């Protein structure tokens, strides 16, 4: 098939992201080298600079970073069909593997040795979560407003957890408030600059 054929490109996009889905653990940043190799070095659809833009946009838009990147690369290469096929490609391996495991999960979890393993894994997961906090912490600018937002969110969230209110939209509301606060602070900041 010719290199510039639409179907060929769509197929390559699907396969590339299926490969990404199958061979990367954790998603997000682990995907970048494979995407670079396939899309930029091998097929020369997107240049290095654009890849950096795509990473930045994927980080700053809602949704899992891996999915954002797949969609963006797919769109750049072949428009909306490209976006859909790349995302589908990314989804398929995860979906099949997890579905396969889930069929055995209910039976497996009754085995005593596995229960012991999962008790150990629980501690591992908690440590992973704490290290995720440390990692994400590096991307946050330390300033007064940021610290206030961080501290108040932490206190509110902990209080709600201990009160066990059963309220299901707390995180969502706090995220929304964070976004609004950020925009309001920007508006105030630019007004101050104008009056100077």
């Amino acid at each position, binding site marked *: 098939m010719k290199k510039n054929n639409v179907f060929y490109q769509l197929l390559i996009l699907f396969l590339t992201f299926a490969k990404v889905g199958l061979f990367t653990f954790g998603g997000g940043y682990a995907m970048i080298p494979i995407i670079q190799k396939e899309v930029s070095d091998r097929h020369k659809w997107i240049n290095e600079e654009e890849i950096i833009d795509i990473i930045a946009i994927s980080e700053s838009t809602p949704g899992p970073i891996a999915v954002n990147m797949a969609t963006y690369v797919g769109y750049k290469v072949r428009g909306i069909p490209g976006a859909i096929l790349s995302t589908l490609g990314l989804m398929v391996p995860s979906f099949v593997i997890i579905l396969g495991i889930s069929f055995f999960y209910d039976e497996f979890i009754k085995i005593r040795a596995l229960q012991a393993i999962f008790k150990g*894994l629980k501690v591992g997961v908690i440590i992973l979560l704490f290290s995720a906090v440390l990692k994400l912490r590096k991307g946050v600018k330390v300033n007064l407003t940021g610290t206030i937002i961080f501290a108040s969110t932490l206190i509110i969230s902990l209080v709600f957890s201990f009160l066990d209110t059963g309220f299901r939209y707390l995180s969502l509301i706090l995220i929304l408030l964070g976004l609004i606060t950020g925009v309001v602070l920007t508006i105030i900041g630019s007004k101050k600059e104008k009056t100077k």
Partner: protein
Amino acid sequence: MIYFELFYTFFLIGLFTFGGGYAMIPMIQEQVVGKGWISADALTNFIAISEATPGPFALNISTFVGKEVGGVLGSVMSTIGVVLPSLIIIIIIAMIMKKFITNKYVKGALNGVKPVVLALILSTSLVMLIKVLFFRGTSLKGELEFDMKSFTLLIMISGYLFIHKKVMKKGLSPILLLGLSALLGLIVFY
């Protein structure tokens, strides 16, 4: 209807995820455990499995929860739900807003939401830790009971992690960390 509810729930979660898969956990906990769809215990198990299998964590955990709640069709609905906001938003940005990331309001909004996400993940991990150490891992109610075994495990794994980082100059990969926890769990709890 459960399928529509799964779709809608994971659509919301996808829409409000900023900064990668783990940012979803506080919301999944509220929505999915809060609705009584799965237990808190099952969720931590799913997190461990999702991290130890290939593919983006966000997709793995959505598929897993969907399957447990609504079978195969449920997992299709939750996975489509979680990717759809990304698909729509990214396509719109790629089409009309090329200057998106340099926009100062977008930057401002992100500066506002990052500390929130950080605090939410920290709060979730603190609560999980307290539950495991003092409340047999399920809820924050009931009698206090210090779990010496989990505590020992915690000290051993974080101790090893610390030494590994000092000696190897880089962190332990999540899969190796989980492998180590699984092995120690088997020894300590079986």
